[in-house]
């Protein structure tokens, strides 16, 4: 049994965006030596997510826009309780919308590995989803197998 853990840094460049990290995940799988097993990809952040969808720019925009409709950063009809001073951070929390988007999209993805390759649909891509950028973010890739 091989268990390998690697952390990659994703530098987001906008407030909200999807960053395709599929090539990085595949590189880590190839370097791991695992032929058959599983790969887990997860973000360490609560205002970001991991999404699997088709790799199209138009769809990326639709995902970002729809999550904003579901969990707006600045809702008109209500206010978030998260808008308060967080003494452990030394600042106000006013990114409840980003946290809620993270919950909606999820924070991880899991794929099988067979014969050294990630088993995924031809159109499936793994995205790091930024909801509160730009920031340097950490993504953990864990590979388990033999």
């Amino acid at each position, binding site marked *: 049994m091989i268990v390998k853990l690697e952390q990659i840094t994703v530098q987001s460049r906008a407030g909200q965006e999807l960053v395709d990290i599929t090539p990085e995940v595949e590189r880590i799988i190839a370097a791991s030596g695992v032929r058959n097993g599983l790969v887990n990809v997860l973000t360490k952040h609560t205002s970001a997510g991991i999404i699997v969808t088709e790799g199209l720019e138009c769809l990326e925009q639709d995902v970002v826009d729809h999550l904003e409709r579901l969990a707006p950063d600045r809702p008109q009809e209500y206010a978030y309780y998260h808008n308060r001073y967080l003494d452990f951070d030394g*600042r106000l929390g006013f990114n409840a919308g980003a946290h809620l988007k993270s919950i909606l999209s999820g924070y991880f993805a899991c794929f099988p590995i067979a014969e050294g390759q990630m088993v995924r649909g031809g159109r499936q891509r793994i995205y790091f989803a930024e909801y509160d950028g730009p920031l340097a973010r950490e993504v953990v890739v864990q590979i388990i197998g033999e």
Partner: protein
Amino acid sequence: MIDFHTHPVLVEEMVIRYPELEKAAREVFFIGNRLQPLETFLLELDISGLQRAVLLPLETTRTRGLPIYSNEQIAELVAMAPERFVGFASVDPLAPDAPDRLERAVADLGLRGLKLSPPSQEFYPGDRAVYPLYERAQALGIPVIIHAGMSWEPRARLVWGHPLHLEPVLADFPHLRIVATHFAWPWSLEVAALALRYPNLYVDTAALYFDNPDDFITDLLVRRVPLTLIEHSLRHQVVFGSNYPRVEIKNMARAVRRVGLSEKTLTMVFEENALRLLGDSER
């Protein structure tokens, strides 16, 4: 366009070079966010439509045991992106050699202003012991940015930040350009009165104490201080500041742009007034 109020406390490259900067960030400045590469700071400016940021240090060795950036460290950070950063100096205002230290920071390091914080450096701005420092800043032709209003820092008492403590300095140094930070919240009307009375006083917008930037800036600049007061009387004396990284630049810039000021006044707030403060404009 310029952000006149930023703190480079989380810049990863500088913390790698000077690990004590993280202790200063956590224990003196008091912020828990992760370190970020310099690129994140520059991207924050980019997506906010701003070209430059004023970097503020704070000499707190006497009161807190270590500074939040030395003047030399600020100069080093400016050199990493000289087209994006304007570095300010800080000295202990009660130190006898403070004026000479300031002059060296300006002459030798190229720093372009002085940052002081009465709540963190534990002094009253009107203390005569500080006057030689103001005289030197005035002679050097640089602006002085002074913390006013509430501070989140753990040992910072509110009384040190009351803006009326600035009045003797404003009166006695009419040619010294002074910026009161955070719109001196919760004494925002008081600082507006001072700005009306003393044209050498500027105020920055780096204020967020509850809710979110949009709601807070609206409360501050529409309800507490009537927007017409700024639009008609103080538009030459308000500068944009974000207080990054306590507040993201993008969020504060959006809030100020949407508050209802005219385009002409926004140009003054985001650019022209800052240029005048820095001595880059004659107007």
